């Protein structure tokens, strides 16, 4: 796919966010390597979502400069997958997948509709095209949202705890699916689950402290999605949990 070929590296420079007079983060730099998945971990309220929204162009009060390696902005190259599936309850699964085309007023030719159907098939929802979200389970709804994200075919995909509301098994299956389908894109995955980060990330970074700072990047071996039973992964998960726990208690005492 063309979007994958041009997946850019992203440089976030001098990001800042103040809330109620206190700096949540200040003069923060973050680099997302092109075509790879970066996972951002951190305790609640540390500003992970704000960073993601800043890159998505949805900043509310956060400032900072977002550029690719050639110094261009990301306008029109970003797809966004939130914690809530954000499906429109009145539209069918297929219409939800095709939402972007409809909102851009792009002619919805047979080729576009066929691609939407094919994507629903790839996330395992063939035959459910006409169902409204209310008829789908939480996992299925998030699959539709994933298909909608893929339909946009953007080189950059920003995901904000997309699997956190799902049960453990559904989450596991969707992580595999997302890793497979998003391979080759520049992905930022915000999560509070160290195991998820270690399964899916080429690079894992912890955001912690007041104002928040990025810890050293962790780059697990092997290609995602990794086997959660792998001893090295289990050890790294323990390490990350300790780091997060320390950060959380430091945040609570300050």
């Amino acid at each position, binding site marked *: 796919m063309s979007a994958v070929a041009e997946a850019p590296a992203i440089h976030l420079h001098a990001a800042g966010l103040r809330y109620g007079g206190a700096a949540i983060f200040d003069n923060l730099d973050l680099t997302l390597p092109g075509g790879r998945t970066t996972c951002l971990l951190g305790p609640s309220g540390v500003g992970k979502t704000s960073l993601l*929204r800043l890159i*998505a*162009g*949805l900043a509310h009060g956060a400032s900072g400069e977002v550029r690719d390696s050639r110094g261009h902005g990301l*306008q*029109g190259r*970003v*797809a*966004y997958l*939130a914690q*809530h599936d*954000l499906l*429109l*309850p*009145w539209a069918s699964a297929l219409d939800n997948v095709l*939402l*972007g085309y*409809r*909102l*851009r*007023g792009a002619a919805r030719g047979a080729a576009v509709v066929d691609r939407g159907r094919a994507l629903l098939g790839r996330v395992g929802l063939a035959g459910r095209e006409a169902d*409204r979200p*209310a008829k789908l389970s939480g996992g299925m709804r998030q699959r539709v949202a994933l298909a909608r994200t893929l339909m*946009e075919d953007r080189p950059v995909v920003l995901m904000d705890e997309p699997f956190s509301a799902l049960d453990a098994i559904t989450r596991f299956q969707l992580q595999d699916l997302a890793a497979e389908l998003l391979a080759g894109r520049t992905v930022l995955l915000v999560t509070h689950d160290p195991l998820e980060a270690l399964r899916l990330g080429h690079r894992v970074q912890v955001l912690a402290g007041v104002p928040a700072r990025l810890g050293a990047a962790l780059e697990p071996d092997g290609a995602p999605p990794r086997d959660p039973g792998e001893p090295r992964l289990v050890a790294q998960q323990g390490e990350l949990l300790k780091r997060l726990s320390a950060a959380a208690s430091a945040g609570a005492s300050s």
Partner: protein
Amino acid sequence: MTVLRPLVILLGLLGIWEIVVRATAVAPYILPGPGRVLRAVFDNAGLLLGNAAVTATEIVLGLLAGTLLGCGSALLIASFRPARRWLLPVLVVSQAIPVFALAPILVLWLGYGLASKIAMATLIIYFPVTAAFFDGLRRTEPGWLDLARTMDGRRWAVLWHIRVPAALPALASGLRVATAVAPIGAIVGEWVGAGAGLGFLMLQANARMKVDVMFAALFVLALFAVGLYSLVDRGLRRAIPWQVEDHGETSP
């Protein structure tokens, strides 16, 4: 049971009415019993039906006009910031004026015919429809708007494909209120000056001390108002099937 229950309630109310009439031995020209009123309904069926048709036309046309105007205004003030600044205060002030006070003026301007009553009904429902729809348009789930922004959605497409459908449940509440109050507008208009209609018939019957006919007209009006409401309510439910059903259900 759902069919039976309203029937039981109706019969119960009629029974209480009958008991009150018999127990107090009130004169029939003050409060006629239900039997007498029913007889008046059948004796004057033609007269009632002809006048009911006039009132029904006023109510339905007023409802249509008010809904169209209200939806248009809500879309306008939701889409254009200057329109909101200029029109919203006018809207609120217009609601502060009792519509009843305008009835004589409307009859003066628009005459004794249908037009003044339709205008009354339109005026009385315009505000609830506008306010409810505007409120719905304003409260679009922010996540959907964020998503639309990352999709580079066009403003009008976002309005049509996201904000309007999201506001339909709110609009439906407004339309239910409008359906319930529209008959008030038509009847008040008829009281001030008219040549036909149930309100006109009631005034005439009152002046001639034909209290049973007055009650008969009231009965027909109530029947029509309830019928119209349940029709609109059912239509709205069918039009918005995704709306969560957490109200309107009477069965436990």
